[in-house]
């Protein structure tokens, strides 16, 4: 026992030293947490997200699992993570520096491309965090359940609460926060809600999406269009940065969880029940034989597609 806490202290110490030199601030004395265990089947854990760090690809999910691939999704190496909770989202500002969030108000940071993570913060009241985005090495955002929204100006060292929705909208789940290339922030939220901020999160404007089902994620397309995805197989596309939306509804009715854009501007969307949609305004639907709930999709540096979900992470060999 003595030995373990000593080792823990050393780790924290080393982590802080490393962090100091690489200028990612962390908690001086990390809160007690059970680290993720090294697992043979780490790449088969239920996954929630996929993120690129330069040419490397990372997937994250349950039991504090982060796996990293440097061969475009063919093989995976488990990262060292100090927590055991479900991780939900990660974002990198370059090939080395990134952040990840998860349940229990967990905020993690890495400075080595995601191989080693340190516990940077446990946010107040341990909210369920669902999305993280960093605009720079200093400025970042984290959002989550029941309207929980946070902002940092010091690379994650300290966070302050931010108000997004008001009135009835105030305690809605904020499912994903993303930015367009011009720095506008968008949030996809519960019950068809979406928000936009043009001043770095100080003021948020509610957008009229015209749908009632929860929106789970979004992205900016190559042509500057904003895309939101959500329940009932809906793909919402706005050519005017969120003022008006064009709604496509897939017949399967499955919830859509993530999308990635091909070079030709077409989308590849994944969702629950093994649903995979491909297209631009019109989509062709494919239902995977395993029917697993897919949670995320990413394109690798070599142009292949990797999906992640209930059954882990998988490189699609036959895909475009």
């Amino acid at each position, binding site marked *: 026992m003595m030995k373990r806490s000593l080792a823990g202290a050393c780790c924290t110490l080393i982590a802080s030293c490393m962090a100091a030199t690489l200028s990612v601030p962390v908690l001086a004395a990390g809160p007690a947490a*059970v680290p993720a*265990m090294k*697992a*043979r*089947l780490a790449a088969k*854990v*239920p*996954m*929630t997200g996929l993120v690129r760090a330069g040419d490397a690809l990372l997937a994250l999910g*349950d*039991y504090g699992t982060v796996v990293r691939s440097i061969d475009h999704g063919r093989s995976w190496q488990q990262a060292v993570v100090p927590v*055991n*909770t*479900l991780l*939900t*989202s990660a974002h990198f500002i370059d090939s080395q520096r990134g952040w990840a969030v*998860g*349940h*229990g108000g967990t905020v993690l940071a890495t400075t080595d491309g995601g191989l080693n993570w340190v516990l940077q913060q446990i946010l107040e009241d*341990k909210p*369920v965090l*669902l999305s993280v985005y960093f605009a720079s090495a200093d400025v970042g955002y984290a959002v989550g359940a029941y309207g929980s929204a946070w902002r940092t100006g010091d690379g994650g060292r300290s966070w302050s609460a931010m108000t997004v929705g008001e009135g009835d909208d105030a305690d809605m*789940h904020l*499912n994903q926060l993303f930015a367009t290339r011009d720095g506008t922030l968008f949030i996809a939220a519960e019950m068809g809600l979406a928000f936009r901020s043009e001043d770095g999160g100080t003021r948020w404007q509610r957008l009229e999406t015209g749908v*009632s*089902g*929860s929106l*789970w994620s979004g992205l900016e397309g190559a042509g500057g269009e904003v895309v939101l995805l959500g*329940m*009932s197989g809906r793909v919402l596309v706005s050519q005017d940065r969120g003022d008006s939306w064009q709604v496509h509804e897939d017949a399967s*009715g499955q*919830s859509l*969880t993530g999308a990635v854009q091909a070079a030709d501007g077409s989308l590849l969307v994944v969702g*629950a*029940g093994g649903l995979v949609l491909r297209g631009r305004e019109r989509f062709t639907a494919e239902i995977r034989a395993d*029917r697993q*709930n897919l*949670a995320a999709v990413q394109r690798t540096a070599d142009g292949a597609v990797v999906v992640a*979900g*209930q059954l882990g992470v998988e490189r699609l060999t036959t895909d475009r």
Partner: protein
Amino acid sequence: MIEKSVLALQRFCFRFRLPILLALLAFTALMAVFAARLHMSAGFDKQLPQDHEYIQTFNQYRDVLFGANRIIVTVEASKGDIWNEKALTRLYDVTQALFFMKGVDRRTVTSLWTPNTRAVQITEEGMKAEDVIGGDVTVKALTPDNIAAIRERTIVGGFIGSLVANDSSSAMVVAELADPDPQTGERLDYFEFSQRLEKELRAAFSDEDIRIRIIGFAKQMGDISEGATSVIEFFALAFLLTTAAVYWYTRSWVLTFLPLACSLVSVVWQFGTITLLGFGLDPLAILVPFLVFAIGVSHGIQQVNYIAKEVINGADGYTAASRSFTGLLVPGTLALITAFVGFATLVLVPIPMIRELAITASVGVAYKIVTNLIMLPVLASYFRFDDAFVLRASKVEHLRNRMMAALGVHIASPRNAAIGTLVCIVLMAVAVWQSQGRHVGHVLPGAPELHDDSRYNRDVEAVVEHYSLGLDLLTVVVETPADGCYRQDVMSHVDRLTWYLANVPGVLSAQSLPTLTKLAASGVNEGNPKWAALPQDELTLGEAVRQVPEGLRLFNADCTLLPVNLYLSDHKASTIEGVVAAVKEFRSKEPFDGVTIRLASGNAGVQAATNEIVEHSELPMMLYVYATILVLVFLVYRDWRAMLACCVPLTLATFLGYWFMKELDIGLTVATLPVMVLAVGIGVDYAFYIYNRLQMHMAHGEDIVTAFKQALREIGVATVFTAVTLSIGVATWSFSALKFQADMGMLLTFMFMMNMIMAITLLPALAVTIDMLIPRRGPVRAPLMAH
């Protein structure tokens, strides 16, 4: 001293031969009354080491954990799939039939047709659950359209791989048994239930298009009991074969009758004693009466051999019988004591069935001293032998003597003996090497008690192949403080344990309350995968926990029990050991206050316990038996050469037996552990007989080569014949419907024959070589047990 008491006993017995025989007859009649009350008992529990940590866990929770009382019936389409009117109708009929069967807990009957089979779809409005086959669809109203809809809902509901085969070739009805009956409190009779399953389900619903498969613990037990009823036929067959063999040997019906009758008498006594001790006869221990019978016959052969030789030399029946009595009482008793000790050491194995077997076998062998060494010669004294028999017997005797003399010349010549010894050393090395990595426990899939091509195991194979179900279940029992399932820290710990174990090689899947609660948590949050975590607060956690069906048995009423169910790729000992080690490692590495992680239930857990006991018992058992033999040999011969010459061939035979087990995929189990111990205890008899004669002739001043030739001539045929008789008794078991009986039969036959061959070839070769290498200094002592 000994000689005097033997003579006194002989005089006493032959003087009061009539009262003694009448008393024995009366005792036999009394025991026969008890023997008639002997019943068969399947005795699953008796196979388990009751004091073992895992078995205590198993016993404590067997009624609340998953799987023990589950019965699975599949309706399989011979061609194509089940998505047609006929197959779905048949599935409905089977569901109904199972529902109304006595002994089935109706609430638990589940198939596509039951209302508890619902497809949950998550929409914006919330979770929408609909019956896979709605109330509006009846068997008569099945159309291609609504069959297609049923199929889609089956897929959406996630029932492919659970209620419907992965390739849709069959569909399943699952039910739990009400055992004990909640109204009457009676335990379910598995044998009778299994027969009803055959009649009311398999026979009633099978035809050329539809095949019915039935698996589950109750069916397995039923089939084992059914297999065990073939006992009578085997006994009859063994008896006939033995009779024929004994007649061939003695050429006299009287001399055939004597050993068989006396051996049967001791079996009657043994059965009576078993009943009096309150034991039943279970499929595993049933081998023992056979063995005891066979041992009786083989010792009886020694008696009739002796008597015949005396008669041929001119004695009358009475004199021949009394000489046989005196001549064989001491050696016979010693040989039986060796067997007795061999059996009795098995009492030390903490598995009730082996203990029972040890007791009944020791009792049986002890009775042999009375029936074969006293009763047989006393009874024989009433018979007369005519000249025709003498003529017939002496002719046969002459022929056999010539054969054995020829064999003796070849084996005992110093050159051949040296070669024999060399072969022995090489063979020993090969056998030791080849027997490495012998299996412990059961190796092949399915019910280990039954053959792999038995109907039950073929059904198991088909279900395993077509469904995403593991049938090798190891349950880790986690005891928590009250309401443990509403505590995030406790649940999180169990979740971590589950994930830790899911990563152990050989674990196909791991299921526990937290893993399903996380899915439920995602479900109540619109199915969003980012919500698949254990909620922090008690209320939300409770809400998610309540979504998990009770029928999965992943928690008990007061939430103090959170089992982790591990489905393994197989039930090989190495696989189970890996999992057990992982559980122990987690337990010591990550202790959690108030949470106790206990091993282990499920069929694999139970097997883990048995494997541990069997594996740890084998070596001590063998050492005890060998120590006994060494002590006895030393007492009788006072000669280290004898100890070496008797035990080296025995050891070689044992290792050959291990090699045989490995080659035939016979694992070390509750059934085969006693076999190896018994085989050594009985196998040494041959060495006794041969070495005894050898020593006697050498004591008379003959050189070892001549001594051996004489020994072989005198008792070579008897020894070979004894082994053959013993083998016949057990070899019939190779055809048993129960795999472990077949394994026991094959192994025992192999061991008897091997020990016999070793005794007439290797033992003399070794004795000769030892005498060549290290010449004796003093004269050879006469053996204590003079034939």
